[in-house]
């Protein structure tokens, strides 16, 4: 348990926006502050990444803020769950009082994403991996999927359920990129063009613009603000690799320890989670993460998610926005996991609302299963 809460949450424009990164960032930040009933004058902490080399510095100047605390940890899609942990610590330590955690990307409008990713020439990967032409990050997740299916005997059809369920949720979310696309079947997923075997385009997250922000402050202060506070109950993280060969077993990720630490801090168990927002960069990411977090046993996830369990109306509501697979994926999607978790706990989700949700989990994954961060959030009881 912490004495810190999320007081505001918002998305920027999503999809294909034609807007700049800082323009989308400013949208997300000002909307999240308005949601909280706060203004930029209240902000003394900024955590962001993906803006520039000096990400938090750049955003602070753009917003006209002189923060007493910043963080620009670069950890891919998991950075935002890490930011929540660091912001909670900074607020409890008294270094700042009001932190905005934000992200935005215009990668679809700007056509800035490349199949091989970004590899810096001075890194070991540039000498020892890039010359072989792996798609980054897809080929790594593809090899993880291959190892998983090989070891546990699962099928591609079973793996496709992650994408199928995500689409079902997106059909309930007017903000989702695939909201109007109609249902997806397992056969559709398998019939989509293969990118890096065994993964097809339908196993891969979207490439869209988009962004979001959450505002953190003390629980005490949050109780006097516009929206009901969402408490930060626990957090944990692990950092495991940058290369494709450092991790011996591709099916066991750092989410094991990240989740264990988060549940221990919160005094909760997986059975206490009412709604889970788990990074779905690829279908296999979700399978590995559900097992790592302890929702089911090792090798059991494909059977466990079958039969509608993770679809709307199922007993384990997962990625209720439609996820990175069908809602929005601006490249570092982790902040939008937090936004959706907050909205679910406030009961703001309309047709996709999980009735009575009191505990939510947000789990970010960055890079090539490189960084893993879990945040547990709860209503203020």
């Amino acid at each position, binding site marked *: 348990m912490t004495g810190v809460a999320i007081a505001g949450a918002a998305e920027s424009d999503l999809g294909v926006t034609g807007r700049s990164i800082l323009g989308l960032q400013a949208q997300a930040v000002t909307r999240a502050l308005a949601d909280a009933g706060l203004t930029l004058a209240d902000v003394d902490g900024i955590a962001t990444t993906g803006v520039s080399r000096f990400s938090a510095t750049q955003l602070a100047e753009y917003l006209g803020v002189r923060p007493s605390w910043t963080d620009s940890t670069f950890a891919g899609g998991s950075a935002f769950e890490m930011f929540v942990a660091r912001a909670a610590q900074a607020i409890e330590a008294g270094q700042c009082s009001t932190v905005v955690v934000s992200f935005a990307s215009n990668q679809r409008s700007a056509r800035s994403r490349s199949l091989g990713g970004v590899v810096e020439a001075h890194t070991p990967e540039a000498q*020892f991996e890039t*010359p072989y*032409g792996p798609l980054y990050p897809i080929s790594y997740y593809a090899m993880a999927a291959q190892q998983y299916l090989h070891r546990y005997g699962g099928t591609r059809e079973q793996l496709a359920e992650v994408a199928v369920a995500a689409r079902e949720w997106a059909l309930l979310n007017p903000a989702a990129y695939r909201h109007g696309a109609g249902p997806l079947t397992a056969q559709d997923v398998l019939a989509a063009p293969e990118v890096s*075997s065994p993964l097809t385009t339908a196993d891969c997250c979207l490439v869209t613009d988009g962004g979001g922000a959450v505002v953190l402050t003390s629980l005490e202060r949050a109780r006097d603000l516009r929206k009901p506070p969402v408490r930060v109950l626990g957090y944990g993280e692990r950092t495991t690799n940058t290369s494709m060969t450092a991790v011996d077993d591709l099916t066991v990720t750092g989410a094991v320890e990240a989740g264990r630490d988060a549940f221990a801090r919160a005094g909760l168990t997986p059975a206490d989670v009412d709604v889970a927002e788990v990074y779905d960069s690829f279908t296999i990411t979700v399978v590995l993460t559900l097992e790592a977090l302890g929702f089911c046993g090792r090798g059991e996830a494909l059977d466990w998610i079958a039969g509608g369990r993770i679809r709307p109306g199922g007993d384990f509501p997962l990625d209720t926005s439609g996820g990175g697979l069908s809602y929005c994926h601006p490249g570092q999607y982790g902040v939008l996991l937090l936004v959706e978790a907050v909205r679910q706990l406030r009961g703001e989700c309309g047709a996709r609302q999980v009735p009575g949700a009191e505990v939510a989990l947000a789990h970010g994954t960055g890079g090539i299963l490189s960084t893993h961060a879990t945040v547990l959030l709860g209503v203020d009881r």
Partner: protein
Amino acid sequence: MNAGGGQVNVPEPDEVTDPWWEATRERRLLVQRCSCGHVQHPPRVLCTACGATEGLGWTEASGAAVVDACTVVRRAMPGFTPPYVVARVRLAEGVLLLSNVVTDEPGAVGIGDPLRLDWRPLPDGRALPVFVPLER
């Protein structure tokens, strides 16, 4: 044989990786070994098992290996011609390397398949270690 690649730009070695790359000119595959017995790849200035910065040397790999995991890449990247196989290759010496499995049947390569070492020459005389399926 579809090797997949690659007119890719392989960076110059640094002070740590230079011996490894120099050995590729003689078509020898080196693995870094610490006096504590630990083997590691890629080469580093320290041993990730015992932390020592002294006592790191080289052992020559036999070239025997198996597929730890692999994927058939089907999207074109600059300098590569799909389809081609990217694989995590487990050397008999114990370490994992990322490499290509060079074959006319990319879809037939699977986990546990035995491999032998081969080389893809680079324009500057160095060479990339790649692997070929072993006839069973």
